[in-house]
């Protein structure tokens, strides 16, 4: 009975997180961000935080171009699903805008992009806790941001002030690649495990017939 319940829990998790687990999109975005921002940090004679921000925005171009192909891949391989109306991504976006603009207003000296990185770190931590132990690897993104903050701290930091944002984007992009790939692998694994009992019973039926 408990095994049956476990399988149903797995199916429910898979269905509830289906879109989040389509991690190749995250991996692509991370790889693109790491390459473009990393390239900028290496190639620019004197990198600036504003330049890093522009490089980060430019890194979305290959992502936008590759997205339809990835959408098609997921739809044909795993199927289509529409999220429950209770999910409100715009609510998250609203909270993000309010929090980051408030932080920028209250602390004018805060470097550009810092609130975004802090929210990314918190969101990653939340995902890791919510889906523990399945998606514990999200702590990697939190760790990347924490390392970024540590090395770019005004006191005791290792980086020059003009390199802080670029380094943070580079670290975050790099951490997104394994996270996205692990999400994708988890999707594949959960799909396999969810249908395993059917396959096992079909195999036993075939065995029984023979």
């Amino acid at each position, binding site marked *: 009975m408990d095994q049956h319940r476990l399988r149903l829990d797995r*199916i429910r998790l898979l*269905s509830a997180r289906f879109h989040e687990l389509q991690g190749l999109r995250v991996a692509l975005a991370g790889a693109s961000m790491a390459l473009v921002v990393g390239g900028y940090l290496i190639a620019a004679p004197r990198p600036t935080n504003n330049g890093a921000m522009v490089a980060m925005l430019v890194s979305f171009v290959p992502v936008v171009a590759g997205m339809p192909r990835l959408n098609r891949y997921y739809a044909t391989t795993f199927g*289509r699903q*529409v999220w429950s109306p209770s999910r409100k991504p715009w609510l998250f976006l609203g909270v993000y805008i309010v929090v980051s603009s408030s932080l920028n207003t209250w602390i004018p000296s805060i470097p550009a992009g810092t609130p975004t990185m802090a929210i990314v770190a918190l969101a990653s931590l939340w995902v890791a806790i919510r889906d523990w132990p399945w998606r514990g690897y999200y702590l990697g993104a939190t760790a990347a941001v924490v390392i970024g903050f540590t090395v770019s701290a005004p006191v005791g930091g290792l980086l020059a002030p003009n390199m802080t944002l670029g380094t943070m984007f580079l670290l975050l992009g790099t951490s997104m690649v394994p996270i996205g790939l692990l999400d994708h692998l988890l999707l594949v694994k959960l*799909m396999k495990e969810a249908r395993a009992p059917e396959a096992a019973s079909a195999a036993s039926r075939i065995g029984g017939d023979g």
Partner: protein
Amino acid sequence: MPTPFEHLASFDRLVHEPSRLAILTALSACEKADFVFLRNVTGLTKGNLSSHLVKLEQGGLVAIEKTFEGKQPITYIALTREGRDVLKSYWKRFDKLREGVRRLKPLRTV
């Protein structure tokens, strides 16, 4: 207080069948899903999934919508409001049954 056996007898057979329960569970976590998704999640064959969906549709638990994306036909399946209520009450009874079974003491033989 009803016994675990009374709880078991009160289960809706339409929902209790493992494959149909898997379909309903997958649908309960989203607004709607297409045939390919349900086939992947449940591991059922096309024929089996179709026959279970027909039964669930006849029971009023799911709604089936046929549409096109470009030139590709897509069949979306959604849990109806009744389906959500039935599934909710099923899980309530299931948990009561588990609790009841846990409380059962084995008979002592002399």
